[in-house]
């Protein structure tokens, strides 16, 4: 059993919040560059170049890339040999978010009650997903999720017979409905299977996958390629100004499901695909 002080968790979460919001991950920047090379729309190309430049400016000035620093989603894999000491584990995650958003000059975008809508002023509570895994390490990923793209995410139960074609149609409908408002170029996370709750969970986890990495199963990797091609034929383009770079990547995750069901979820990530991970 390894003892892990809660303060280490607080400090790590705080740093990950700041890192995620102040600099975009390298695979995303590479995705922008690849899109610049492929984009045929002059307006679209100029948007992509400004996104690359904006990341540079944010790094130089140590400020958030985008002002919508999101609702904070935190994924924790807790090794079963880790003994958290000195306080409550879940509270430590929230304290880390509170600290990070204050120290990083990030926007507080959370209202405590969805109907009364009073801001909590510290960006908590974060949404925390915790799993217990073998080992004595603690792995944390922070995903600050902006509202402009999250608002276009959707799920549906298809009939099992609708199959891959039904999934493709549902995803394309979601992308066309979002249009320029979701801040393309997008990363599109698709969940297929599981239950009502599981399918949205895996759709969101899909957007954590690095751009350029396909699913291991050949039929799912093929579906990802087809979806990306179809999405980039919609004409929406960067910011909805027209073009071929509507999405930089499509990642599909699957899970076992009931014999009667074919649940599908689409989680839309804007061009500011921020995420940061650490292991302690």
């Amino acid at each position: 059993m390894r003892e892990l002080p809660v303060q280490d968790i607080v400090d790590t979460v705080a740093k990950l919040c700041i890192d995620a919001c102040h600099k975009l991950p390298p695979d995303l920047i590479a995705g922008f560059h690849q899109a610049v090379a492929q984009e045929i729309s002059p307006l679209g190309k100029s948007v992509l170049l400004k996104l690359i430049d904006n990341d540079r400016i944010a790094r130089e000035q140590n400020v958030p890339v985008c002002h919508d620093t999101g609702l904070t989603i935190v994924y924790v894999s807790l090794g079963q040999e880790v003994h958290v000491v000195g306080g409550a584990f879940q509270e430590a995650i929230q304290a880390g978010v509170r600290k990070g958003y204050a120290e990083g000059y990030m926007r507080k975008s959370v209202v405590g009650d969805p109907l009364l809508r009073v801001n909590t002023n510290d960006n908590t509570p974060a949404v925390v997903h915790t799993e217990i895994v073998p080992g004595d390490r603690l792995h944390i990923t922070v995903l600050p999720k902006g509202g402009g793209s999250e608002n276009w995410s959707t799920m549906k139960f298809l009939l099992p017979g609708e199959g891959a074609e039904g999934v493709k149609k549902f995803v394309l409908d979601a992308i066309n409905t979002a249009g320029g408002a979701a801040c393309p170029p997008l990363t599109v996370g698709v969940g297929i299977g599981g239950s009502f709750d599981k399918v949205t969970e895996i759709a969101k986890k899909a957007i954590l996958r690095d751009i350029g990495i396909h699913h291991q199963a050949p039929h799912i990797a093929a579906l990802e390629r087809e979806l990306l091609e179809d999405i980039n034929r919609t004409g929406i383009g960067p910011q909805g100004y027209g073009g071929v770079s509507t999405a930089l990547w499509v990642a599909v995750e699957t899970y076992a499901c009931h014999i009667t069901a074919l649940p599908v979820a689409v989680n839309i990530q804007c061009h500011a695909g921020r995420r940061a991970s650490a292991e302690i």
Partner: protein
Amino acid sequence: MTTHYLTTPLTDAVINTLVVGDEVNLSGVIYMARDAAHKRFVELIQQGQPLPIDLTGQVVFYGGPCPTKPGHVFGVVAPTSAYRMDPYATVLFDHGLKGAIGKGNRGPAMRESCKKNTAICFSAIGGISATLLSCIRSAELVAYEDLKTEAVQRLVVENFPLLVTNDAAGRDLYEEQVAIYKKKLAV
């Protein structure tokens, strides 16, 4: 497509020179207000009360900044999705507002409102908040401090980089451009 250098407030004569796809570098005062402030503005108008600021000829920017970092004039900020303001913006355009800065396509009601009121919808690139900060010269809180990031701020900007996305002729850049590329990319 033309590049314009304009200063607020905007007159009908200037607005009539703007065409979808034109680039506008906007300078002068713009008012930052988004969802919650728009709701209050429209409630005041419905009650026949005056607004806390005179919007005649002015341009509103749909922004909600990060906190200001020490040494900076303001927090990083870029426009939020414009469509959410549509039901309020048509009312404000009817009451003298001349322009709005947001991101993303708007609904048919806005097209009609731009035409009817000789008004304009601009877009700035969503999410380039670190970049846009360099165009903000000063900021002053003018109303609704309780709304925090959604409070109304009077910003002085210099060459704020915009694109005309809905013009006073009723055209819509998003619809036109997407249709062009959709056709080009059809299999």
